[in-house]
């Protein structure tokens, strides 16, 4: 009788250990999954914050394009202003909430610095800091163009790249 009771206890202990082990495994798996999700959300949030900096820069009067087209207003960058600011960057360094600002016009992987022939890249501002994380967002870059005595807004696509300290 005692032996049978011992056997039953043994069986129960084995089951409890097995079930506990199983739930621990599930728990570890779940925690790992949650950790990965949280980490990815954190990185997304960091990126969203950087993109909100990009929107701040885009809306700065020093960069923003003023246009009769209400859609371009507040969305696009003014290429002429960019050219002026990037050549006089030291005067504006206090304005920027970020460590570096670059502008790439179009999608060509080869970057030709401006000013220059067929250039497509402006190093607008650099604080000289190292170890920056860079984020980019698409922008439209506009300028006034005159053709056959008719002036119009010519807008291209580009990428605004900012660097923030890690």
């Amino acid at each position: 009788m005692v032996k049978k009771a011992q056997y039953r206890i043994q069986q129960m202990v084995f089951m409890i250990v097995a079930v506990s082990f199983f739930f621990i495994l599930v728990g570890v798996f779940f925690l790992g999954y949650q950790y990965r999700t949280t980490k990815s959300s954190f990185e997304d949030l960091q990126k969203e914050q950087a993109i909100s900096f990009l929107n701040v820069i885009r809306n700065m009067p020093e960069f923003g394009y003023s246009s009769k087209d209400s859609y371009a207003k507040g969305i696009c960058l003014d290429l002429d202003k960019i050219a002026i600011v990037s050549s006089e960057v030291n005067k504006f360094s206090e304005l920027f909430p970020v460590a570096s600002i670059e502008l790439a016009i179009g999608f060509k992987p080869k970057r030709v610095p401006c000013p220059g022939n067929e250039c497509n890249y402006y190093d607008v501002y650099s604080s000289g800091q190292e170890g920056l994380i860079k984020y980019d967002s698409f922008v439209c870059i506009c300028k006034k163009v005159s053709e056959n005595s008719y002036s119009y807004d010519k807008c291209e696509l580009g990428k605004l790249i900012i660097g923030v300290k890690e």
Partner: protein
Amino acid sequence: MRKIAQQEIVGFVLIVIIVMVAGLVFLLISAKNSKAESQSSDLDNFISSILIYTSDCAPIFTPNYDNIRDLIVSCNEGSKCKNLNKDSCEYLNETLKMILEDYVSTRNDVSYYKLEITSNNTGEIKQIIPPLESGKCVGNIIGTYEPLGKEEINLRFRICKED
């Protein structure tokens, strides 16, 4: 002896059911997280910028070029690009395809995209141009929706982004 065996079986079945329910709940949570469409300001910026991009199509006179927003309206109205001697819808299709391919080439984590432009001015939803899509959806779905404000035209862009 038979009663004990029955009890054992009931216990085993109970454990199996508990484990299955736990697994099912976990799977449901995972599926819900991965397939829900989310928004991204990066995508919103991209679409807003595309709509302002100046095309080479001038339906009335050169150099009164349409931006993509106006080109969509021109296409919906059946206009032609006079300077290019081309149908505005054909030109719109080509231009958007080129831009989207360039976009994907700069975003390595984008596995799939789909752009749909629809109009609803006659009460029924009509595709202005055939949907532009490429790739196979892997990862999270991110989408943006932009009403153009003219003739009930809507633009919907979805991408799948790998983690």
